[in-house]
């Protein structure tokens, strides 16, 4: 587990390489369209960082990250629509199907500051409430996963069912500006990409700090033996809620940046299927590692775009097979191959390690 972090320079160098790739190489070699796509992948990667923390480190299999992603995205979209419409005016899509004007709960988001605060706070707050409601009652494992999935389903239904307020199944799109900057100008689109890249790097730093801190150790302890942690005098519900809330905040920011970069947010982007789809990148990259979820999410999103350009239905098979094979046969993701090679080269694993797999898991290890 910690061997990934053991090589301290490797982390710094890896981070530097990532920054150079994102800030210098990508803008130089990619067209505006492809750079926009990369920006979209980075937004998914932000969600993935959070999932890596909550699921990989905390054992909370959240199938509802689309909800937090969606809240961030819709908040941003509401603000952009209101800003496009101008002070006191009604956004175009609303005027089309309703004569009642802007719903009261839209009004605060005319302010950019309120919107940004809400993007940071609301997903986090919802995660805290949900976390307290579930973890405190020891709802966990499969129960938690299925509840979070049902939440995503309910969220999508709610969005579709209120077209006047949320644009229904179309969602919100046709944004002209982003905090005063025209979204049609390629220079501004590049700026958005840079913001996304910077946000992702900051999130990776936050995640790393959380992972190597005492909190990170405690989180792993909660994942592997929640009751045991309780007997040491901690409240695991609080520990897990913090990780879940951080993951939600990251998803919310990812969603908020997704909107101006992609230009549309619809219920299709936040329901059950995309929520689970976000997991596969994390699983492939290596759920417990720092870089694994990020690289996995970007790689999977890229593969989806390019594969579906060639074989429309083939992508479904590929995605299904990835879920099956990676999770069943390589639960540590590709990162476990890297780690295995590294440890094999550095020093042979201590002999008892081989025995470990043979002994049955103690009761505390399984999260039933």
């Amino acid at each position: 587990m910690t061997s990934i972090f053991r090589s301290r320079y490797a982390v710094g160098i890896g981070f530097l390489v990532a920054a150079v790739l994102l800030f210098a190489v990508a803008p130089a070699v990619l067209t505006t369209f492809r750079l926009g796509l990369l920006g979209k992948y980075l937004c998914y990667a932000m969600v993935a960082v959070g999932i890596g923390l909550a699921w990989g480190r905390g054992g909370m299999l959240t199938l509802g990250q689309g909800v937090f992603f969606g809240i961030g995205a819709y908040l941003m979209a509401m603000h952009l629509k209101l800003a496009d419409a101008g002070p006191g005016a009604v956004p175009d899509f609303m005027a089309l199907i309703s004569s009642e004007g802007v719903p009261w709960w839209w009004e605060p988001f005319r302010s950019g500051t309120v919107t940004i605060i809400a993007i940071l706070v609301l997903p986090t707050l919802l995660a805290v409430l949900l976390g307290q409601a579930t973890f405190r009652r020891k709802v966990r494992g499969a129960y938690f996963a299925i509840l979070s999935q049902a939440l995503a389903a309910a969220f999508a239904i709610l969005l579709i069912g209120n077209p006047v307020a949320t644009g229904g199944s179309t969602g919100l799109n046709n944004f002209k500006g982003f905090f005063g900057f025209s979204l049609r100008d390629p220079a501004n689109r590049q700026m958005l990409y840079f913001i996304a890249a910077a946000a992702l790097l900051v999130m990776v730093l936050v995640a790393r700090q959380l992972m190597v801190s005492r909190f990170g150790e405690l989180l792993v302890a909660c994942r592997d033996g929640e009751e045991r942690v309780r007997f040491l005098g901690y409240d695991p519900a609080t520990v897990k809620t913090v990780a879940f809330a951080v993951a939600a905040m990251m998803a919310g920011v990812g969603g908020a940046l997704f909107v101006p970069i992609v230009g549309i947010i619809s219920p299709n982007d936040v329901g059950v299927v995309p929520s689970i789809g976000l997991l596969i990148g994390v699983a492939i990259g290596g759920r417990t590692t720092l870089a694994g979820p990020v690289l996995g999410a970007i790689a999977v999103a890229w593969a989806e775009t390019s594969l579906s350009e060639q074989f429309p239905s083939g992508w479904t098979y590929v995605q299904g097979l990835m879920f099956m094979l990676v999770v069943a046969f390589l639960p540590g993701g590709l990162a476990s191959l890297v780690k295995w090679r590294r440890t094999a080269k550095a020093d042979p694993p201590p002999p008892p390690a081989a025995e470990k797999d043979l002994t049955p898991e103690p009761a505390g290890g399984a999260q039933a």
Partner: protein
Amino acid sequence: MDILVTQVFNGLSGGSILLLAALGLALTFGQMGVINMAHGEFMMAGAYTAYVCQQLLGSAGVSLLVSLPIAFLIGGLLGVVLEATLLRRMYHRPLDTLLVTWGVSLILQQLARDLFGTAGVDVAAPAWLSGPVEILGFAFPRSRLFILVLAIVAVVAVTLVLKLTPLGRRIRATVQNRQLAESAGISTRRTDMLTFFIGSGLAGIAGVALTLMGSISSNLGTSYIVDAFLVVIIGGIGQIKGAVIAAFVLGVAQSWIEYSTSASIAKVIVFALVVAFLQFRPQGIFQVRTRSLV
């Protein structure tokens, strides 16, 4: 009064559909801890079995009855293949089974599209199941009555199998204490496989029943899987009677809320109620008391 009777019946009927979908899950998830997201696609396989039977046999009445056991077999075989190839190695990682079976469900859906086309297909209801039947002055759809009866029969059959047969005793023993069961000479591998066979077979039967209600297409399973899991969760793990109560309560709640609001709102409210319920009974209606650590 009319509305009362109609809506209670609709609720029970919706509940019976949920129950058929959830019964197999209550076995595989409740008793083995495997979260089988492909359960919905096993239902889809059952529905397509009914379609193929009708294409081959022609007569609607005969083909429906014939397809019930065949769908049970096909659903069961799919389950056994899944269990033997993938899930067997994963019993100590229950959460990961969710993702693996999600992948299986994606593949099965796409296979169905490639085999049967993207367009939905129709299974004609036999004459004795179409239209309403008058009971005490109220009109009840025959097909819904049929599903209600089918669900009850399935529950009774599963209960009897678990309670009375040697297989049922083996299943219960394995669920309660795997190691002890093994040392008592029970082949837990075979028991796991048989449990999965029955659970998945029930999905096949549910699929046949669904052909009477709606469209048969590749996404048939996805409409039911979340609700079915909610039923199992509310019912309590390892509890058939819990699933029965949960299914009917959810069904009646859904139909009543839907009647006074709308279908969309009803779904959201029902979900909120489920979360609230778990606040009071985090282990479901029937909790199994245990003194083990986790």
